[in-house]
């Protein structure tokens, strides 16, 4: 749960994939997925630069960073401003280092190929998520050239909700090194483009790069509590006068007249 902030988009995708149902069969897509699985399996280590461009409504945000991975389950990701996080996994414990000398810590999820990268980059058809994806019978869209690189593109359109389309871009090495996601959850539409560049496959990366011990001065991050800002017991509740859906108004002062107790509830439906 804690990682959701660091990997907002990645986690959103987990939801998409799990919501997938069967689509029509596409032999080219299936064949390409097999190639991706084989290529992914052959990756013992990898380093790359990463960029994630997120557009939520009219807000655009681009983050960039570097990625190092090494089997099994070792990860070192550095993400620049405005997120400013470093994610380090030695295969057992995952640390997220945050500004202000703070860190989060959690066990690495078990199972093959945990999906650490946002946007399903380096998508592994043999991971738990990948298996579900393979069932969804993705469609092959043909080739597309982006920034001088030619990719073969697979499209996925899971049924609503969430209403989303996802495109996996398979590079010359048969790895998914670019993804595009369009999501419309009924509120602000989200578009995310994630890509790896400057990719090196199976370089020598020392195990030490994936090891981390929090310094004695570092603090374990705790989520700000959701009741920290509530009006304290004994204080006066702030006045309000708010419209009803039918167009009249209800004020705290009027509503409480002649009553023994007033309960104020805050809720939302969607």
């Amino acid at each position: 749960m804690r990682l959701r902030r660091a990997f907002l988009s990645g986690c959103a995708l987990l939801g998409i994939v799990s919501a997938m149902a069967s689509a029509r069969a596409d032999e080219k897509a299936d064949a390409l997925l097999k190639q991706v699985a084989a290529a992914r399996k052959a990756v013992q280590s990898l380093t790359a630069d990463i960029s994630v461009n997120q557009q939520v409504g009219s807000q655009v945000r681009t983050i960039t960073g570097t990625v190092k991975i090494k089997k099994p389950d070792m990860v070192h990701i550095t993400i620049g401003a405005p997120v400013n996080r470093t994610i380090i996994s030695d295969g057992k414990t995952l640390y997220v280092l945050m500004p202000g000398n703070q860190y989060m810590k959690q066990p690495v999820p078990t199972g093959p190929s945990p999906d650490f990268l946002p946007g399903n980059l380096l998508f592994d058809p043999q991971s738990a998520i990948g298996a579900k994806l393979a069932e969804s019978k993705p469609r092959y869209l043909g080739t597309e050239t982006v920034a001088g690189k030619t990719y073969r593109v697979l499209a996925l359109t899971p049924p609503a909700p969430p209403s989303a389309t996802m495109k996996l871009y398979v590079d010359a090495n048969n790895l998914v090194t670019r993804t595009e996601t369009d999501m419309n959850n009924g509120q602000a539409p989200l578009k995310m483009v994630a890509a790896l560049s400057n990719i090196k496959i199976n370089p020598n990366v020392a195990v030490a790069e994936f090891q981390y011990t929090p310094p004695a001065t570092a603090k374990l991050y705790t989520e700000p509590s959701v009741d920290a800002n509530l009006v304290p017991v004994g204080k006066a509740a702030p006045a309000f006068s708010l419209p009803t859906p039918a167009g009249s108004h209800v004020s705290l002062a009027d509503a409480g007249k002649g009553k023994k107790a007033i309960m104020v509830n805050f809720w939302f439906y969607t």
Partner: protein
Amino acid sequence: MQKLYSELKDKGLELIAINHGDSADTITNYIKEGHFTFDIVMGGEEGSVFKDYGVQAFPTNYVLDPDGKVVWRGVGFDETSIRAALEKLGVK
């Protein structure tokens, strides 16, 4: 919550439910479906009422005395604590 209100409204309980971000239509349908009889008002998406009450999660509930002073508050629907607070105010 409707159950709590139905049970205690004649004992002196007033309940105001402040909605965050839903449209008037959505709320109206919800009221119809749920047969809600307490006051439901629209706080809007960025309404100052949420900031005034320090609401960061939903549901958040407050129990106030007749003068509007906070007797109890909490995140979630902790019915036992809410009933205890109401009882202190003579609503039971």
